[in-house]
């Protein structure tokens, strides 16, 4: 069984993003970038499926700038077999466009499972996986915290408001992963060296033939309102008094 794992290069989750003064976006110049944390979990799960003998090949794919090759090399070092970069340098693609590009890659690669992160920590959209499933007319299993694949179906436990839900989807299927699914491994130095020799195929966005037109125009990006400076209180007694009398919330 072949597994396709889309990964995204995003701002490192530890970095506090800064909004540009001209309100055109977030300043990403000279900022540390990494693989989206949810995508690391998706890669890890694919590798574990291969280690269990369920998956036979893992293809990592990224849609993004030339530098996204580094993100793909990370996936290869974690255990992916080969990688595809769909190079889109000038454009920040919307989730629908990414889903359409991925649909074209799925048509070429014919994976039985597409494993994605539930959301990217930059756009916070939480949409690509569901959109891809819709375009392919495949079943979807989102926010997975447990995945069992057997007999042509994926049994997936999902994190839902208030608890957990288990569903069974016939393959091929799209699965998006949640935080609790697994603990991603660190790539070891020998594996990082080996990853440099694994195949990484670069395609131009135009060659994929997907409609990637923007539907949303970003008018501005602003900083959220700052909270007024708070005070420190000395005792729990003071705290209760202030909450009652000053803030009026008790």
């Amino acid at each position: 069984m072949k597994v396709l794992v889309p990964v995204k290069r995003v701002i490192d989750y530890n970095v506090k993003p800064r909004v540009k003064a001209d309100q055109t976006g977030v300043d990403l110049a000279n900022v540390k970038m990494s693989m989206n944390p949810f995508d690391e979990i998706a890669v890890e799960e694919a590798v574990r499926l291969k280690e269990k003998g369920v998956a036979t090949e893992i293809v990592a794919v990224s849609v993004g700038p030339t530098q996204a090759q580094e993100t793909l090399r990370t996936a290869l070092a974690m255990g992916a077999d080969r990688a595809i970069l769909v190079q889109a340098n000038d454009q920040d693609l919307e989730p629908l466009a990414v889903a359409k590009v991925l649909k074209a890659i799925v048509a070429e690669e014919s994976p039985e499972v597409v494993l994605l992160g539930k959301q990217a920590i930059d756009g916070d959209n939480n949409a690509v996986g569901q959109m891809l499933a819709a375009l392919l007319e495949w079943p979807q299993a989102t926010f997975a915290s447990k995945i069992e694949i057997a007999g042509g179906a994926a049994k997936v436990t999902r994190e839902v408001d208030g608890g957990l839900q288990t569903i069974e989807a016939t393959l091929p299927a799209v699965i998006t992963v949640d935080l609790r699914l697994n603990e991603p491994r660190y790539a070891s130095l020998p594996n990082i060296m080996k990853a440099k020799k694994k195949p990484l195929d670069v395609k131009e966005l135009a060659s994929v033939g997907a409609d990637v037109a923007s539907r949303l125009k970003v008018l501005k990006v602003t900083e959220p309102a700052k909270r007024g400076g708070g005070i420190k209180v000395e005792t729990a007694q003071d705290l209760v008094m202030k909450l009652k009398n000053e803030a009026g919330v008790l």
Partner: protein
Amino acid sequence: MAVLVIADHDNAALKDNTHKAVTAAQKISGDIDVLVAGQGAQAAADAAGKIEGVRKVLLAESAELDQGLAEAFEALVVPLMANYDAVLIPSTSLGKNIAPRIAAKLDVAQISDAVEVVDANTFVRPIYAGNALETVQSSDAKKVITVRPTAFKAAAEGGSASVETIAAPAAPAKVKFVEQQIVQSERPELGAAKIVVSGGRAMGSAEEFQRVIEPLADKLGAAVGASRAAVDAGYAPNDYQVGQTGKVVAPDLYIAVGISGAIQHLAGMKDSKVIVAINKDGDAPIFQIADYGLVADYKTAVPELMSALDGSAK
């Protein structure tokens, strides 16, 4: 122009998130219909009819809709959209699951987690864990919008819309429901609570979390939340998690106990009206956004707080 609001409900009762989505919908159009999809949901549909400003309630019932299967919602909602210019869905785990699937089928972009409706085409939404707000203008003929409930006031009661039962399309064959484990709780729901008490990694164990955080929450009639660190360490269940990847809350009072205040956590609670931080590290980032900070070990501060609350109640 007409808009469809997909209700958040548990069949027996309508959830406040629906009222909040109706408020957001009012900024787009005055013609608002509410879709109640579930099973045995007549009571929820009747309640939806009572929301002020609702024109009509559509009730669709099937097991697959009740189970929240995205494929069933796609089959139901996509044909309905011939009559609507926009669909608004509260960004719960159900809304996040179904909305992008509907958007892709309609070949339109999704506006995720809108916190403000500027006009029928323009929306504000948080990006980068709430560290920036993006104002976007949609060029799509139809809009699919998930609405962050905490950003909108609930629409008032007082309507008298009729309920029309519509057929639920055939069940999707490729996916089936197996089971559900819902955590039962006597406490208010995290997303809707007026007061939230959250614990972090400093608790050190699940027992300590229950010993310290839960009695304080019960004393205040509050919901219990947790940081991702506390959830990952197994001190609290997943659905307690407040943050970018958990729930977004905006209560009147948020009390963070032993939480350092990582970006990820702040994204889920920084719109709370009053924030209280109790942490022994005076330099913890949580103090930068807290209205009231108490630099103390929770082991002593929480019992003192409990007795101060007792004292003030008398």
